[in-house]
Structure formats: C-alpha cells, structure tokens
C-alpha cells in the first residue's frame, strides 16, 4: 500500500526550476532513500513534502494516505503523522531534552523520554535535563532529534542526510532506531548523497537536476549511482543513459 504519492511535483525558486515534474510513490513500511549528488534537489523535495515555508508553492499534487495535503500547514501534516529531521537540527536555548523529546509525544510522561534516550544510546540520567542547545555535539543533537521522532511514532519520517556530523558509533544507533521505527510500522525516507546510507534502504529513488533518473530496489539504484552517476561530472543534467 502506498502511503505517499507525488504527482508531477515541480518547484521554482527565484525563477529557477529546482524540482521538475517529480512523480513517485512511497510504499508503506519500508525504508526508502532519495539519493543524488549535491544540489540535485533532495532537500528541496523533502522540505516540499513537509510543507516548510519557502517550499509551499509547488505545482502538481502531494497525496498522503489517499488525500491531498498540499494545502495543509506543517503542523497539520505533522498531525497526520509526517515529520522531518533537518540535516542540521535546530538548537534551542533553555529547552530541555525532556521537553523537546516529549513535544511530539501523545503521552507526556518522563518515562517515554527516558526510553527514547536509551533507544538512541544516550544515558538518560546525563542528558534528560540538559538543554537542546549549542553545547551538544552534532552527533548527540542528531540522536536527540531521533529520540523525539521515536517518541512521536510518526507514520512517515523524512530524514535529511542522516550521517552528516555523526561518527560511526552514533550512526549505528541512528540506523538501529530507523529499523526499530520500521518494525513498528513507520515508513522512512532517507535523503542522502552517500552510497553507504543508500545501502541501508530497501528501496530508492535517484534524483539528479530535479528529476528522478532511476528508481527501484536499493541495490539496483546503488549500482546505478556508483557506476553511472558518480563518474559523471555532476552537471545536474541527467543524460539519457
């Protein structure tokens, strides 16, 4: 069953065409990857699905669970179960890890925050009362972001560049929790330029110059990406082969 469908979605930015008629289907319960070189339009696509400001005037349609969400605000989309993790998560002054994790959770109990922290491999005692501010390392911040996603139990998680600013140890926890979310029924969309991250997905789309150039089984897209896309000079104009 498909949870998300994009029909001919295009987006202009300063009269430059960034997304060019994207049509994809995201099937429920899998880990998907949207992969492509720098500047391909991957983040733009994720931001458009979430409906962030500056990404709301796309053409075409975005269908979630059979209904168009194009006119919904970010929080309305979130309440349907869509969420997004930024490549560089925001830093908040004073907001505690506990309150942040529970912000998206239906049940506001400290135990949920403790469990979520433990799931991403952070000692709850050490972190729960800290602020989600600049003093956290990049990897810690990203794991806390995922703890908050875990507490929210989204139906569709969009995650931009899961490995950026993260060391190998943290990355392991991140992929573990993505698997956990999948096993609980969430659908995950990873946005990445990394073949290594692509390998963690079940299914993938390759985007270049704002167009989908290849899709299917992650292994197949991996081979295409590594053998055809990477040697190409990233001119952002997908060639016919």
């Amino acid at each position: 069953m498909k949870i998300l469908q994009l029909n001919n979605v295009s987006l202009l930015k300063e009269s430059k065409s960034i997304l060019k008629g994207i049509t994809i289907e995201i099937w429920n319960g899998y880990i998907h990857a949207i992969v492509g070189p720098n500047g391909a339009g991957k983040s733009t696509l994720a931001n458009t699905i979430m409906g962030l400001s500056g990404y709301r005037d796309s053409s075409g349609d975005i269908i979630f669970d059979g209904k168009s969400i194009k006119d919904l605000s970010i929080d309305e989309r979130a309440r349907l179960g869509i969420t997004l993790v930024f490549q560089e998560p925001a830093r908040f002054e004073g907001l505690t890890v506990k309150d942040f994790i529970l912000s998206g959770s239906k049940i506001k109990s400290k135990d949920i925050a403790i469990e979520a922290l433990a799931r991403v491999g952070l000692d709850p005692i050490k972190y729960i009362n800290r602020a989600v501010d600049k003093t956290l390392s990049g990897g810690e911040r990203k794991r806390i972001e995922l703890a908050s996603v875990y507490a929210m139990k989204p139906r569709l998680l969009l995650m931009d560049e899961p490995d950026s600013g993260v060391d190998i140890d943290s990355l392991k926890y991140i992929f573990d929790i993505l698997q956990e979310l999948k096993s609980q029924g969430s659908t995950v969309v990873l946005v990445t330029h990394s073949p290594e991250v692509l390998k963690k997905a079940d299914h993938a789309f390759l985007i270049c110059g704002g167009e989908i150039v290849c899709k299917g089984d992650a292994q197949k897209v991996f081979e295409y990406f590594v053998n055809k896309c990477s040697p190409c000079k990233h001119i952002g104009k997908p060639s016919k082969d």
Partner: protein
Amino acid sequence: MQENKEKLLYELLSSINQHKLPPDVAHIEIHGNEVLNAHLVKGLEVEAKSFEDGVDVKIKVREVIKNPVRFCFGMIPPNGIQKIIINTTVEKDASASFIASCTFPNAKNIQHLMDAFITIEENASLSYFERHVHGPDGGVTIVPNTKVLVKENGRFSTEFELIKGAAGVIEIKYEAEIGINATTNMKARIFGRMNDSIHIKEKAHLIGENSTGVLTSHIALKDNAVAIVENEIIADAAFSRGHVDCKEIVQGNAKARAIPIVEVNNPKAHVTHEAAIGSVDSKQLETLLSRGLTEDEATELIIQGLLK
C-alpha cells in the same frame, strides 16, 4: 498594630509562596518602609532604618553563609512608593547568595525604587537573584540602580527575573567594576506584555587583569510591550574577557531595540557580543511544528526555554 503586621507578613509571603523556613535560613521581610520581620544567621549582619517612604539597609557578610538568604520586598496595597537603599559588603573570603522576591500582587500604581551599592572584597563572592511577582494589571514602576565593585578574585553574579504578571515600567541600571581575576555575570530574563516598558542598562568595566564579565539579556515581548537593552562592556586590562548576549523574541506590536557597546582598550583583551532580535527562529519553530505542535504551542515552548 501587631496584628496588622502579621497580616501583612502573611499576605506578602503568600504572594511568593514562601512560608515556614528552617532556622538556619536567614530571611528579612520588608513591607513599604517597615521591616516586618528579620531572622539572621551567624556571619550575617543587617542594620535597617526606616525613613518616610523606604528603608535604608546595611548588610555585612562576614563568613561563608551556606543557605541562601531570603529577602522579601513588597507592598500589599495597590498604591504607594517603596524605596530601598541597600549597602552590601561581602568581606574577604566570605560568600553568600541572596534570593530577593519583590512582590506587588495588587499593584495599580506602585513605585519600587532600589539603590544598591555592593562591594565584593578580595576572594569573596555574592550571587544575587531577584524575582519579581506582579499582579496582572501592570501598574508597577521598578527602578533598580546598582553599583558593584568586585575586588581581586571576587565573584559576583546577578539574575533578574520577571516572567509572571505584567512588568509595568522597568528601568534597570547595573554598573560593575571588575578587578584582577574577578568575574561578574549579569542576567535579566523578562517577559513583557501589554503596555510594559522595559529599559535595561548594564555596564561591566573590566579593570583588572584576567577579569571576566558576561552580560545576558533574554527578553520576550508581545502585545504593545517595548524594550530597550543597552549592554556595555569596557575592557581595559590585559587578558580580560567579556561577552554580551542579547536575545529578544518579539511578537504582535511589540518593539525591541538592542544597543551593545563593546570597547577594548588593551590589545590583550577580548570582548564578543551576539544579539538576535526578531520573531521566533523559523528553524526552531518548524522543527516543533513538524512534531505536531500548533504555532502557539511551539512559540510558547521556545519562549519558555529562552526565559529559563
């Protein structure tokens, strides 16, 4: 008379949710120009003299005082003036922490004027936390004027909090001279709403080598509130370091202005400043929106954090 005093004391303390304190906690309660109650501990000397519309208080901290000393200043009637003059000396090697609650729960037209002179002697330290509790109608004019001298190895920190109730008119003026190896931290956290008018003027003068000064103002404004924040750090001495941090979230018709002044008169000194004024940060907001919070809930959470 005695009965009246007890009633006032009860109302004053109820408004700040403070009742029985253990005997090893010093506390002083001043209503209008009258000292209602004072309980001291060893190492703390307080002398108070009433005058027409206020109290002149002299405080000496002679030892290390373990528990925070509680001050309560306030007025129960809706109208009046309260002037507090405080001279505080923290003697060599002594230290204390003061928690002052200023409470005007029924204020319609109240002026609370405070002139404080604080001397932190060598190796001494004082932390001063001032929390204001105002009624919902504003009607309070608060003018704290504080001069601080922090001598060698001394430490001074002050925090001003006004988050609950309407601020009214606030004119805060703090000036600190900071000596060799000494540090000063001044922080204000204020939530202004309706027609509140907030003016903060803080100045840290780094005169001793290796001295440090940090001035922080975190302010959230809504409705028609107005805030002006002037933070000034002057660094004269080698290896002195200063930082100004001014963050203001502005909503509705509120207006904010920040004027950081940074002056460095020694090539070995270093002063930085950061100021961010505007609506709620869009990335913070969108993060919380994407967890399903409404815009109001998300804004509230961000402001609560900023004022924490």
